[in-house]
């Protein structure tokens, strides 16, 4: 599966479009991590527990998008975009979307 943020993959030609594929996940850390993050926020600096949370959320959202693309019969997802939204305190939604296509080598 080829994943790109660009519209054309060098050396490949798009032969079929399958439309938009999306993957999203909402995750949260436990209350103890939230408390630690609160104190860390008071003194400043990177909140590593939240960085890791969003990292794993993004990976999972991407995997869900890829699953959807495979089901559609695609072998690539192009023009991928990502978005993150804070839903409630400590919980964030990560949203990944792109265009599923079938490509062949030129």
């Amino acid at each position: 599966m080829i994943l790109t943020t660009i519209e054309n993959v060098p050396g490949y030609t798009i032969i079929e479009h399958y439309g938009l594929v999306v993957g999203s996940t909402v995750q949260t850390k436990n209350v103890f991590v939230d408390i630690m993050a609160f104190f860390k926020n008071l003194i400043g600096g990177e909140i590593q527990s939240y960085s890791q949370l969003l990292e794993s959320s993004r990976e999972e959202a991407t995997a869900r998008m890829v699953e959807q693309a495979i089901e559609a019969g695609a072998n690539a997802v192009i023009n991928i975009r990502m978005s993150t939204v804070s839903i409630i305190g400590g919980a964030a939604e990560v949203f990944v979307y792109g265009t599923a296509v079938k490509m062949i080598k030129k």
Partner: protein
Amino acid sequence: MIFPLLMFILLSVSYIWGKTSETRHFSSLARREEETKHHPFLAEQLKYFYKPVRFIGIASSSVVMGGGLFRHFWAYLRNIVGGHVAAYESLQERARREAILRIKEAHPHADYFLNAKIETINVRWTMVEVIVWATVIYLEPENADTL
């Protein structure tokens, strides 16, 4: 009497800690940027390369940063009179540069990072998250059989 004293102590600790860690972080960013400056990180798309493409994929990274109590207090005061909130500008800048560097460091042998996108959101309280993603391209090595 206890509350103002406690606030003063917290603000002082936050200022000293924040200033020290920011200075350290900026010097770390400058050093690491110098080390990775040969990896083109572009917001544009390239269609043609001087060598065949060996691998193409997506790379992403994110950083969540908290500003610290003093920075929020200072920004609050600044907001009363208006103007540039430099304290937050430097926080956003650090988060952005760190996120870009993490992508580059995760792919030290990549030839290009194309169509890079950067997004900033507010995760919780006054924490900011910067998310960066791009297409990573590895070209065939010089002595590859395909050339």
